[in-house]
């Protein structure tokens, strides 16, 4: 990292001033630092600095046995734990040629979609806060807490669940799971609608977000943007539809897209996605069969054959990919993650050019980054 200058630093003609934002800044969603060059109120150049949360997760994975890596994946995108566990388990299963019991697949989908809702609720909460709206955040956190209580009943932990296993699940759902979800769904629907009604078409919110930091489809693809950030540009691409994994091909749902690719579209797409996830959960609950949820491996340690595999999945933040190289031992030889936030954040320099200082916060918020995943 470059040394942080003290005092007023200026350069050039007309005079540009250096403004340091972060790493300890409430609106950077973690420890992220931006060095802004500003001309008056206008941002002329940005230097993003990441790595404050770098723990070397990928290297740590090389030292853990295959079933132990799941806990490390929990800690990458810590707002979408189930989705992260799913993609890692899917990668090892693919390499080993394991089939997952059907009930386990449905449980995974239900939990992943609820996790998507929880993650998007947090996004809406922070988006509101970034734009200056306090009330929706309370509503969203209330809804998210309901989901996390359910997760706690299922896995024993509100976050960092460590519930998925290679080839299945740790254990079956609690007996009253369907009743609990049945009670949760209308409450969650009401929470989402309430926050949506308060925020999405609010005049002040629209004025703050509409037309801010729009990105074209070409640039979005070039920067590797995926997920809601890409769909906000109007690209109808969702891995759950385009390349269905798990049992996603058995559900009816829409892929919401935006029009202009600006901050408001990124917000709008995520709100709509929550309603679609609700639909998936409802269908999955009806279709879910009874049966076994543990893998055919039993209590043996997974030991994939020599080989390599690339598996991707649709996370709340975008497309996550796992590139796994195995040399036939009980530990991964190399594990490389394609973190969606990492790619989305790399476009920040482009997005922030020629915006106002006051907009930097909403632009960063609209990307919905998780620094645990960016830095790994």
């Amino acid at each position, binding site marked *: 990292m470059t040394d942080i200058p003290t005092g007023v630093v200026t350069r050039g003609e007309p005079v540009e001033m250096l403004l340091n934002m972060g790493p300890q800044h409430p609106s950077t969603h973690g420890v992220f630092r931006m060095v802004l060059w500003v001309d008056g109120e206008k941002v002329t150049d940005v230097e993003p600095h990441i790595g404050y949360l770098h723990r070397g997760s990928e290297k740590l994975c090389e030292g853990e046995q295959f079933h132990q890596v799941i806990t490390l994946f929990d800690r990458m995108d810590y707002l979408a734990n189930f989705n992260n566990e799913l993609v890692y388990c899917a990668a090892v299963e693919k390499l080993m040629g394991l089939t997952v019991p059907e009930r386990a697949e449905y449980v995974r989908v239900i939990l992943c979609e609820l996790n998507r809702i929880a993650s998007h609720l947090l996004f809406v909460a922070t988006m509101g806060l970034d734009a200056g709206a306090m009330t929706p955040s309370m509503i969203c956190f209330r809804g998210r807490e309901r989901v996390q209580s359910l997760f706690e009943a299922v896995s024993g932990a509100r976050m960092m669940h460590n519930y998925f296993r290679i080839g299945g699940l740790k254990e079956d759902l609690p007996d009253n799971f369907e009743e609990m979800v049945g009670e949760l769904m209308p409450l969650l629907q009401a929470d989402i609608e309430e926050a949506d009604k308060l925020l999405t078409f609010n005049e002040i919110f629209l004025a703050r977000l509409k037309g801010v930091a729009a990105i074209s489809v070409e640039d979005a693809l070039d920067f*590797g943007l995926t997920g809601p950030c890409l769909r906000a540009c109007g690209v109808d691409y969702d891995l759950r539809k385009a390349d269905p994994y798990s049992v996603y091909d058995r559900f009816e749902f829409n892929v919401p897209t935006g029009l202009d690719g600006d901050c408001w579209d990124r917000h709008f797409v995520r709100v709509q996605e929550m309603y679609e996830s609700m639909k998936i959960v409802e269908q999955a609950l009806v279709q879910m069969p009874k049966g076994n949820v543990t893998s055919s491996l039993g209590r043996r340690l997974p030991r994939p054959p020599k080989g390599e595999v690339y598996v991707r999945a649709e996370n709340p933040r975008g497309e996550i990919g796992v590139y796994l190289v195995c040399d036939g031992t009980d530990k991964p030889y190399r594990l490389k993650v394609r973190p969606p936030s990492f790619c989305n954040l790399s476009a920040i320099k482009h997005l922030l050019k020629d915006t106002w200082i006051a907009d930097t916060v909403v632009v960063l918020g609209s990307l919905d980054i998780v620094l645990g995943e960016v830095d790994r």
Partner: protein
Amino acid sequence: MVENNDPEAAEASQEAAVVDVAVEGLSQSNLDILEVLKEVLKDFNPQPGALDDLPQVTIGPGDIQRACRLAKDDPRLGMSQLSLLACVDYLEYFQIVYILHSLDPDRTAVIKTDVPYETAALPSVTSVWRAADWYEREAHDLFGVHFEGHPDLSPLLLYEGFEGYPGRKEYPFNDYQEF
């Protein structure tokens, strides 16, 4: 053994058999992509293969920038996104893996290249996809691979002055440096 009068056909079938071993497990659509990939990159002596169920070619490190440019611009491939750039330490050499992606139609292809351990350098692909910028900085941080033509290879995940390359196999696990 049945004698084959047509030497060309025999040669072709033999060739097909050789290719089949390398690309075992590819679906027909991915085999088609592999054919196109080989055709587009024919100047760079591509070695066909398969990454599990994905089509893959291996080329020399010096050609990587031109090859990626062709893979992106050629309408038959149209790899508009760089999904992943991974660096793997195989002790004698580094393997750089480019996972390319096109959205419509949904296609994924892999380009691999090996660089020697001692002089790990290859051309940067930031001019092709800007997504490569941070990936290359990350690989430079953790593995010490130099990407020629990259605009700014300053540390991304590590701090200025960090010694060693923690991604490499030789770097100890339970070691840390005081900041």
